[in-house]
Structure formats: C-alpha cells, structure tokens
C-alpha cells in the first residue's frame, strides 16, 4: 500500500444498518478500504450488496431513519487536517461544508436527480454559491457556462437556462457531472452513472469522466454492477456481497487471478462481447433474505468450495495474498483448518 500521506479517504469497519419493521438489514456490515489521492476505486456487486449504501454513508445521505451508521469511521484527510465524517451530524454545517466541496456524487438516474422546477444553471449555481459565496453573479454564471462546456454540452451559454426536462438523458448526466465538479471536489463518487444510458452515450460519459478525473486530479469511486465498465474506470476494484467486501485488488489482478469463489463464479456467469463462451456458469441458489444474520461467510449457501463446519461457523478475516490483493475467504487463510468448532469460535473471539 502507498504511504499514509497519499491516502485521501480511509473507511474502517463501516456498518450501516437499516432498522425496518420486519427486522434489521445489515446493508453494510463492516467494510474497510481506502482511496488514494487522484486514484480510482471500482466497486462491483449485485443489487443488495450494499455498494450504494456504502457510498451514501460517505456522503452521509443515507435516509435516517430507517438507516443508521452504527459503527466504524470514515476518515477524510484534508490539507487542514483529518476529519471523521461519521462523527459529524448528517445535517451539521461542518458536514454540509464537506459535501460537494470535498466529496461529491453523481447519481444513477439522470431523470430524477435534478429538480424539475429550476433551470440547470440555477441548480449548479446554488452549489457554487453555498461553497464559494464571494463570487459575483456574473462570475458564477461564467463559471457554470465554462463547466457546462467542459462536460461537452453544446452551446452552454444557451443551455444554462433550460430546464432538466428539455435535455436528453445523456445531456442531463453531463449536467449532473458539471454540478458535481462545480467546486473542484477531491473525491467524486459515481454511483452507476451510466446504467440508465445507451451504450454509445455510455461510452461518451465514461470517456468524459476519465478525462475530467485527470484534469481535476480528483479521486474517483466508481460503483457499478457492470464488470467491464468498472474495469475500464478503475485502478483498484473491490467486490462486495451482502454488505461485505469479498475481495479487493488491482484491476489486473482481480481479473486475471480472481481468488474468492464468489468472484470466480461471477466472472464465469457473465456473457461478454469479447470472449466466446460456450456455456455460462451459474451461481446456484438465490441471495439469502436480507434479514438473515450470517454467523459465517455470507456466500456460504451458494459457494462451490465451501467447507462446512468452518465457513458457516465463523467469519473469514481479510487475508493479504499479495501486498495489493486481499481476500476474505478461509481458503486463503494459512492457519484455517476444518475444526473442531471450538477452534472456530476462538477465531471469532479474537476478531
């Protein structure tokens, strides 16, 4: 891992639970990762794996109630010092000062993430006005026009005054990106920004995000269920399943040498354009109910290489296979053996 000073965000053992009438959903159940300055981290997972909730916790925008960040820390290393986002109140002035200024986010739905009542320019200006209040109206407007031009919106000086419904999906997503970049954030979180778009438009947006990341030198956290998209966007990738990180490695390692049985199964179950697959491998079974509390590995019930008595009894710990590749699976824990369940329970105790 790179040295401490390069780290922008460190998330340690984050837990975000949803307290619902039917029970508690452990949407994010102890995830730890860090993102270096100017680097990009991809997050892959199926629906319900907690990837979006993780991102929302970093912005402190999970709906509370029913959800609550119950544990962990999210350390943000800024020039003026390190702050723990989780210690702040979600709607406190300190948190509001960070949001959009240091961390901003592009959402999945370009149709619903703007208010239909205000013009595009109006909404982007609002973000700038809150964080850089000493600009004049004219300066702000010029800055928004410049931003809109940067994200590839044609005739920005005219389109600054249109309402969101007058733009196509691709253009709206560009405007959303312009808004996210309006205050030069250190970290941009992109939560499935191209899922609602067509492939040729998706290609345009991906190129755009990549070139802007370089230009602005910001870090990127790119969330998607689409492996190919994530692989194009990220230096490092983590794979999530049911609120936990199963595997984390550099993009090359995770594609060429997937270690976790879930990652391996996932890779074989996806029809790709550039691989001629005779038959897709399926992951047997279904996702367990979200209310289930897993004593062991959450993937146990669907895993082809499970070790009964070990994997369902204790949670695997994060094992470092190479300095840039970690996996959370008993198959890679050197001193893990089929127990003696007493042995397994001591492991839990030590965690």
């Amino acid at each position, binding site marked *: 891992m790179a040295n401490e000073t390069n780290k922008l965000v460190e998330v340690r053992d984050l837990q975000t639970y949803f307290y619902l009438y039917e029970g508690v959903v452990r949407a994010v159940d102890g995830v730890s990762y860090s993102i270096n300055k100017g680097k990009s981290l991809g997050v892959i997972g199926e629906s319900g794996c907690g990837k979006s909730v993780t991102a929302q916790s970093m912005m402190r925008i999970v709906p509370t109630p029913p959800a609550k960040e119950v544990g962990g820390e999210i350390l943000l290393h800024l020039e003026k010092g390190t702050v723990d986002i989780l210690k702040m109140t979600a709607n406190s002035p300190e948190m509001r000062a960070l949001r959009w200024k240091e961390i901003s986010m592009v959402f999945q739905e370009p149709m619903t993430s703007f208010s239909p009542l205000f013009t595009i320019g109006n909404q982007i200006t609002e973000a700038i006005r809150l964080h850089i209040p000493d600009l004049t109206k004219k300066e702000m407007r010029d800055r928004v026009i410049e931003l809109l031009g940067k994200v590839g919106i044609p005739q920005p000086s005219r389109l600054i005054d249109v309402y969101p419904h007058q733009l196509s999906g691709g253009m709206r997503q560009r405007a959303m990106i312009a808004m996210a970049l309006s205050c030069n954030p250190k970290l941009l979180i992109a939560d499935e920004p191209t899922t609602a778009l067509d*492939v*040729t438009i998706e290609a345009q947006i991906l190129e755009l995000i990549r070139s802007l990341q370089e230009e602005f030198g910001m870090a990127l956290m790119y969330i998607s269920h689409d492996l190919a998209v994530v*692989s194009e966007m990220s230096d490092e990738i983590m794979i999530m399943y049911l609120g936990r990180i199963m595997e984390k490695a550099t993009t090359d390692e995770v594609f060429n040498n997937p270690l976790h049985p879930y990652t391996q199964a996932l890779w074989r179950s996806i029809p790709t354009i550039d691989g001629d697959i005779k038959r897709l491998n*399926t992951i047997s079974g279904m996702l367990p109910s979200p209310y289930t509390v897993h004593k062991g590995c959450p993937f146990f019930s669907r895993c082809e290489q499970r070790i009964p008595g070990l994997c369902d009894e204790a949670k695997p710990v994060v094992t470092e296979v190479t300095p840039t590749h970690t996996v959370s699976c008993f198959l890679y824990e050197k001193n893990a053996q089929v127990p003696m369940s007493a042995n397994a329970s001591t492991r839990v105790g030590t965690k």
Partner: protein
Amino acid sequence: MSAQAEPLLEIKELKKWFPITGGFLKRTIGYVKAVDDVTLTVLPGETLGVVGESGSGKTTLGRTVLRLYEPTSGDIVLHEGANVMHVPQLDDKEMHHFRRNAQMIFQDPYASLNPRMNILETIGEPLLVNGIAKGTELEERVKKVMLQVGLRVEHLRRYPHSFSGGQRQRIGIARALVVNPKLVVADEPVSALDVSIQAQILNLLKDLQAQYQLTYIFISHAMGVIRYMSDRIAVMYAGKMVEVGPKQELLSSPLHPYTEALLSAVPKMSQKRKRLVSRGEVPDLSRLPSGCVFHPRCKYATDICKNEEPHLREISPTRTVSCHLADKLTLEGI
C-alpha cells in the same frame, strides 16, 4: 441452419408508424417511425438476436411481429409446414391459431404478471383463451411446463409477489411455452435481473430451445448477451434495420459504420484500448435526418449519405446491410 433452409418467418417491408396528433381536432400532424421498412427472415431453430439502443425500434418490431401492434404496412408470413399465415390479414379465429405458434416473453418480470392471478391461472391462461385445454388437463399441462422451466409444482397456487425476479421470469417463460409455440419473441428477458440470475435464465432459454426446437427472436441492448444467445444478429438504428448477418462474421467484420461504433462502444474486460466514441445521440424518430439516418453521427459520411436513403442490400448470400459505402469501407470488429 443453412441459408437454403425454408424460413419459419418472413418479415417484408414492415412499417409501424405511430401517429402524432395535435391541435383542436386531434389531426395527425406527423408520425413516429418506430419501425420503418424492415425486411428480415428467421430460420427454424435459430436464434436471431436483435440489438439496438433505446428508441431503435427493436421492441416495436418484436411486438408488431406478434401483432400486439397492428402493422402500418408490410407483411409478416409464418410458415407452418404447408400452411402459410399472412399475419396482418388473419381474422380473430385464425389469430388464435397463430398465437399457438408464436409467443412472447416480456422484459419486466415485475410488471408482466398480474398480481391477482396465481401461477396456475397465469400460466394456464393462454391455454384457456386459445381453447386448448381446461380443467384437470390444463392443470396437468401447467405442472408439466413448470417442471420444464425449473419451478416447483407446490407453488402452483402462489401469487407473483412471493417470487423473486428470476423465478418470475421463469413464470413468464412457462406462460409463453405452455402452448408449445414454434416461435418465441423474447424482449430483453434478462435485463431486469442480476448477473448471477441472468446466467440461469439464459442457460434455461438455451436448454429449452435445444429440447423443443424453438426459434427465438431475442431482443436485447446488451451486446454480450446477444453474442451468447444468437446464431445471427440484426442491428437496428432509429427504426431501420442497418445490418443482418451471422454472428461471427458480423462481430469480426461489421459492414455498417453504426455496427462498428456500437461494437467499439461496448466496454470490454480484456483490454483497455482507445474507443471510437461516436458523437451525437439517437435522432428524434418523428424528425429523422434526410438520407441515411446515421449520417449525422457517421465519420465516413459523404454527400450521397446526406441525400439518398440507403436500402438493405445483399453483400453476400448471408449478409445484408443498408449503407451506401459498404463495399468501400473496411471496418473494425472485435
């Protein structure tokens, strides 16, 4: 699956234009040309993949082929042995017969099942409305098809809300297959599902095809899924069929610049390479550009493309393309 085989389905110059009405008298002031002049043949036992972006008309094509939309003009011919059905001209009684041969699987497993009908009623309804079976016989046939698609017979009287997305899509497949159709139009059957479930459904569709000699028109926007499922691929853009050809040939050496752009745009895992990013967006279907509909986005466009509309023409016995420049260009595939 040779090119000489008798086709199962022939689509000839099919058009589906939706009128736009306006003004006080709701007069027709224009048309959305969702499907415009599409000619296509489908051979028995094959999977024809139809790929295109949203608004390209692929869903409208699928629905018009089954006459869920009345075609504006053109012909759809289904061959059933010696019996030839001209679908647009069929009367109600003949439509029942047609529906036994051609069925549809819908995209959204949450919206395509009636929440107030249990599984027996849902899967059995095609048998009932087409007068094929009722009573105990119907129940037996429903049970049989449920086993075929991997549903549990104990769930016969459950309602859709108690099933997951993947299971619901299995119910949708069972409902299409219960009448023993020859042709199944599958409209984005896996796009609402997670990847691990998607693989299960795709494999199921392949197994069923091999077992019952089904013919699929498989509609999807996902190139990877199309590649996995199809024998031949048809590419649509703005209501037009731009290119049709056997899978391998079309992917490795596309003939239409749009196909090239589409293949290049698809994110790939194997290598990071420079993409050809096509500028612009899919045009408004009520105000299509003159000449070739793709010319404003095409990097090879010349004057003829702006003025003259290209028509589908044969380049080889198996490949057709609608591009003026197809003979001159050498395009990059994958």
